[in-house]
């Protein structure tokens, strides 16, 4: 689909406006999704304390440049940017003025910051009763852990997710990834869109308090139940599954090349045998039933590895899938970009950015055929829309805007 086609259709949220204080990853993602759904998202940022995603090594030249970070461009595409220095009282008044024109407010500062700035939910809902406000934090806005200093990977540790990740019987290794940001952000969008519907029915907005820790724990349902129901604590078990064998990643021809294989049923086991052209080890007594294969999974892994090592991950995938057996190469970034499947499904769009030219921006991860999500514009330059927004929405004239810029209010 060409860019024009993607931008042509209205999204479900066309006509809604979002005041987006969200920053870094967890805070930026909800606004990104809402923008792709058609909302007008005003990213509120400041030179006083720049979004971390704008910092870092530039792609072109050696000078730091806040406009050169592809990850920032990805998670802020579709948004407009206004630069507002919230340490100035005038800026706070401007924010209040904007809220009267907005439907949603998003923020992920430390709990308490919005209140301290005088723009907490109480104040904002006083200005506009219909406002839906979402706060995203590590551990929620209340409770003993609300002020904890934690990066997303630490949340994985606190949530119990990391303790389950490691080779069987060994120490936990952890996920080391910002999954908490992503899970928290997706739940936030889900709650916001629902609240907008409620607002339409009743004319009342509401306050949404999202905990990234909880969003991570929500993926641990069975682990928590195991503790409750049996008193056992889920421990690292490598790639082993409690009911499937073989199951896991197997070495292939090539450097650090692997294929993941999972066999669920007897029928699939027969399919695997057929795909391998029935090597003699398959007939050993120790692999005669699902139960015995599970019991002897370590031996099974060794035998299966001797077969996988001789072939590429791609070959194995085709052989096994043609017999209805789950297999797929363990994909690196390059595999994912150039994989024919992803190419056909349109993993990304090329979007022109004033600083970097055409660059790949990843499309949202689902498609709706009637109101498709779409990337409506490139990520904004810092403060790019000061004139448009403060002039257009608040009726402030050009001269005054320049003055506010000089006074480092619009900054």
């Amino acid at each position, binding site marked *: 689909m060409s860019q024009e086609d993607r931008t042509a259709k209205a999204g*479900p949220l066309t006509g809604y406006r979002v005041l987006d204080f969200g920053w870094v990853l967890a805070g930026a993602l909800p606004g990104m999704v809402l923008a792709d759904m058609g909302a007008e998202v005003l990213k509120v940022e400041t030179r006083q304390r720049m979004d971390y995603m704008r910092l870092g090594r530039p*792609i072109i030249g050696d000078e730091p440049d806040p406009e050169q970070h592809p990850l920032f461009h990805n998670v802020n595409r579709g948004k407009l940017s206004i630069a507002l220095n919230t340490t100035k009282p005038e800026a706070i008044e401007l924010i209040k003025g904007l809220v009267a024109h907005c439907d949603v407010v998003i923020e992920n500062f430390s709990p308490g910051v919005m209140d301290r700035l005088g723009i907490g939910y109480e104040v904002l809902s006083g200005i506009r009763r219909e406002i839906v406000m*979402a706060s995203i934090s590590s551990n*929620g806005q209340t409770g*003993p852990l609300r002020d904890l200093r*934690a*990066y997303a990977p630490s949340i994985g*540790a606190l949530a*119990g*997710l990391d303790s389950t*990740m*490691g*080779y069987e019987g060994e120490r*936990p*290794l*952890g996920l*080391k990834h910002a999954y908490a940001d992503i*899970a928290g952000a997706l739940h936030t969008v*889900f*709650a916001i*869109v*629902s609240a907008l519907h409620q607002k*339409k029915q009743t004319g009342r907005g*509401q306050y*949404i308090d*999202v905990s*990234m820790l909880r969003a991570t*724990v*929500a*993926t641990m349902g*069975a*682990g928590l*139940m*195991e*503790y*409750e129901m*049996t008193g*056992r604590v*889920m*421990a*690292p078990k*490598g790639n082993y599954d409690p*009911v499937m064998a073989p199951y896991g*990643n*197997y070495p292939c021809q090539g450097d*650090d090349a692997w294929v993941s294989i999972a066999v669920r049923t007897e029928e699939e086991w027969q399919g695997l045998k057929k795909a391998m052209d029935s090597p003699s080890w398959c007939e050993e007594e120790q692999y005669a039933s699902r139960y015995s294969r599970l019991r002897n999974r370590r031996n099974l892994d060794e035998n299966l590895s001797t077969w996988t090592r001789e072939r590429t991950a791609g070959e194995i995938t085709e052989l096994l899938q043609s017999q209805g*057996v789950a*297999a797929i*190469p*363990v994909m*690196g*970034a390059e595999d994912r970009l150039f994989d024919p*499947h*992803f190419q*056909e499904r349109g993993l990304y769009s090329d979007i022109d950015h004033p600083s970097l030219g055409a*660059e790949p921006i990843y499309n949202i991860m*689902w498609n*709706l*055929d009637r109101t498709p*999500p779409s990337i409506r514009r490139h990520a904004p330059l810092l403060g790019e829309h000061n004139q448009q927004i403060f002039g257009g929405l608040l009726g402030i004239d050009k001269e005054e805007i320049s003055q506010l810029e000089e006074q480092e209010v619009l900054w």
Partner: protein
Amino acid sequence: MAMNTSENTSPTVMGGLKVLEISSMVSAPFCGKLLASLGADVIKIEPPKTGDPSRRRGPFPGDVPHLERSGMFLYLNTGKQSITLDLDDQQGREILWELTGKVDVLIHDLPPSRASELRIGQERLAEARRDLIAAAITPYGSTGPYSEYVANDVNIFHAGGEGNLLPNGLALDVFPDRAPLAAGSMMGSYQGGLSAAVGLCGAIFAKWGGSPGQFIDCSTQEAELTIGYMPLQRLESEGVEEDRFTRFFRVGGVMPAKDGHVEVLTLEPRQWENLGHFLGDPNWASPEKFQDPTTYGAEINRNMREWTADKTKDWLYHEGQAAGVPVAPFYTPGEVFESPHQRERGFFVSVDHPEAGTYDYAGPPYRMSETPPVLDRAPLLGEHNLEVLESLGYTTEEIVSLARSGVI
């Protein structure tokens, strides 16, 4: 702010929305659960007698397997109704088709060929069920060369996100020849269901605004990609393909404690300084050495592991935090369950189930001030057969005969 229970009458956002779910295991059930938590009426279709495979996976109370007592099923199907239907039977398919005419949303996890076989393929729905929103949550999406591929959690996790990069850094240093590692909780599958729920929510919102139904194509593998943005970006912008060996080699990571493990994560120079002080400013943790983790990272970590090993994880956690070092304990699921913070915030909700008994379930990750999410028990297998079939106009006699012939 109390959680809604069935006795509570606070309004729900999706109250009155009718959802039909054909699903098994994690991804699609998790999506349906999220809609149910906002008050949607979700009817889950399960195979007669055996039900969703997650009913057989456990964990089970006292380790005694029972279809109505599997923790995984109970957690992933809260707030739903269950009907049993043999979809390989012609009458079963007829009932399925009738049901699609009575609901607003259909969620399924079938590849395109199977959906067509059940006569609920995208084209037929678009033609004959214009107001229906249909979401297909499949491993690789409903189009493209892999649309018919089968997959389980390990496949999804390692084909989509950062699975290929795990373990990495120092962990990999310890055992370079081991296979890439999956998360222990079926995280990849959960991510697929969550991502689909957000897309679905957009379609529901559009329908509430007067749009007709539409088809939503959700690939769990692509949902993982949200997790794997960074390596894709590095490849694009710097031409660097990250692998487990080259990935950012950093100081810290998983450290042993007397009673478990902690994670030490220092990303900013200020925190390295704090960490040096926290460790008592030894030579091996000097600012110069912190600045060259490629050379000194292994040495620092070896020493640090020794230093942390005789301290408790809570001591390291609280003292580290006080010293400005982001330290986090590796809590086990048990410790999360007992956490005073989560208890205080009312995260866990006690839910009674006639067969499984009363357990505390993890609730939704967010609070809503006006329309609090709800959490009701999972259904018994086929618990709502009578009710649902009666609503379609079947007589008691017909329903009995459907049961006898194994259709329901």
